């Protein structure tokens, strides 16, 4: 099993921090227009939000794993709900590499695997170095093409 790049934790922490800040701004707005919210409470909520975000990021990094198995891409992830997904290569429709602004700043990118499935259709592997992402994309594409003769919906 392969782990993600350690820097992905920063990405998740950043996401958590954004969430905490949004919550803080929301509470501040409530304080301003709706009802009195003590500043200490806002600070506490934001601090707890940060803390939870960090703990979540650390934990998520520890559980996130993926592997290219003989017939399928296999992933394990999830803190609250632990999820194990197998994506058979024959089912791979196309593979993208993507990165958002934060990811780009951290020098990371994601690989997104699409299947014809209607739910849980898009499988995303975040926290890959651009090289690793391209590599994985190539590998998956090759494996998908190899097994394509067998494909059918």
């Amino acid at each position, binding site marked *: 099993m392969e782990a993600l790049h350690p820097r992905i934790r920063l990405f998740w922490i950043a996401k958590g921090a954004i969430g905490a800040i949004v919550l803080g701004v929301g509470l501040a707005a409530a304080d301003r227009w709706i009802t009195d919210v003590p500043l200490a409470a806002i600070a506490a909520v934001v601090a707890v939000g940060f803390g939870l975000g960090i703990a979540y990021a650390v934990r998520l990094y520890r559980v996130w794993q993926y592997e290219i198995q003989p017939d399928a891409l296999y992933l394990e992830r999830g803190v609250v709900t632990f999820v194990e997904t197998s994506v*058979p290569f024959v089912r791979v429709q196309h593979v993208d590499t993507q990165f958002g602004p934060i990811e780009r700043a951290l020098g990371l990118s994601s690989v997104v695997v699409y299947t014809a*499935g209607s739910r849980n*259709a898009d499988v995303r592997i975040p926290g890959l170095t651009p090289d690793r992402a391209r590599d994985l994309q190539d590998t998956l594409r090759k494996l998908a093409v190899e097994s394509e003769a067998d494909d059918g919906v």
Partner: protein
Amino acid sequence: MNRLHPFTAISEALGRAASGLMLPLAAVTVLSESVDAVETSWLLVLAPLGVLSGLAYGVAHYYRFGYELTDETFDVTSGVFSRQAREIPYRRIQNVDVRQGMVQRLLGLAVVELETAGGGDTEATLEYVSKAEADRIQREVRRLTAEVDADGDRSAPSPEAEPTADADASTAADASTAADAPTDAADSGRSRPARTLLFELELRELVLYAATALRPGTAILPVFLLAFVSDEGGLLPGFVLELSAALLIGSIVVPWALATALLSAAMTVTQYYGFRLGREGNDFVYERGLVERHSGSIPVEKVQSVTITDNPLQRLLGYAGLWVETAGYGPGDSSASESTVPFAAESRVYGFAERITGLERPQFTSLPTLARRRYLARYAILAAVLVAAAYGVAQVSGLERWYLAAVAFAAAPPAAHLKWTNMGYAVCEDHLVVRRGFWKRRTTVIPYYRIQTLTTRRSLFQRRLGLASVVVDTASSATFSWSAPTIENVALEDARAVHDTGRDRLQTALHERDRDDERSGAFADRQ
């Protein structure tokens, strides 16, 4: 290139003319209020201009619309100013549907819709063609699709290659009409394959179906009707309001329930009147409808999964319905799956399921009792929320005896038990069968070779109890409205076993299947 029926030009031109009239009318009326320069007298020029250009556009639209059946693709060109040319490879076509509204039936016209996998929209709509032409297109597309499918590296379809091919044989054998020749796509060649009638919804069945198919959606309409009636005052005598609460409830709930049931029944009858299912070569063909007549074809090879539905009433009577799901969108059916047999005796339904998928009647594994405990806890929480809500309402509205809401707790254990007993799964030779739901119970049969992804998930609570859920994803578009088939709350090792079995059998099935069958997989084509 073929043109649509000339009537299209008339209806199109009239429609466009109407909007050509409305647009300047609305614009000038609004603008003349606020902008001084605009005067209502402009309408004398603008309105006829709008109508004329609308008419012209409609006619031009008709003349610029063409369709053609080539050897490999169905071509549609359209567009007056910006032109669009679309070629749909036959092997990507999931189903061909013909729709006839009431007016269209009178005029002998029909709408043809071609569905392919993947898109949210119908890939091509021909509105309108004559009924005869619609039938011809439907037939031709099916024939050409079958030809494209058969043109691969195999000369004739081998029955053992695929369960659906088996079903073909058994269908022919089972059909009482001996006159119908066995219908293999390869045999049929240029000639039209014979149609075998598989199922006809009898009047008695239709009535039973109408009586038992309760549509939750129809429960809302009577509320509006009632609100309307009681608002008018005159229709509902004043003293009714002064009667006891019980009578009041009776006077509202009973008519409401009756109206709901009647509406629901009426909708079912109009939708499924004259339902008929047949088989032509490698397609299922069906027709149905009282006012609006639908007919469509479902290629056997495009079937993703089959779902058998029943509600407690239907179970009591021993009836069930069968739905076939393809990757394309179903016509007029928001559920996006085709009702293949809307309502029939349960044994017959399982018979059909067997013919379509080769399924033998499965032995269900029930869920561990721990699962029941989870549902009990879940429903108890729900009851607690209800009591809390009642308490909340009591605080503001002076509602007394809010604690009576606690009867909800009494309902929790039986509800949990019913949910639990109606759930189950079966790991068969070629299929995974998932059963869930109490009120609308759905038994979904998924051939292993249709599995797209497999997911085992465990929430915090499930992990504590050592349980897991397996989500089996297919390309069936029914999962957009119905949740993806999920085996919920099984022991972790069983979940893992199902997950691995599904994966392994998918590979085996793919190896066993004839390569050529795969080529027919429309969705596999890069989109």
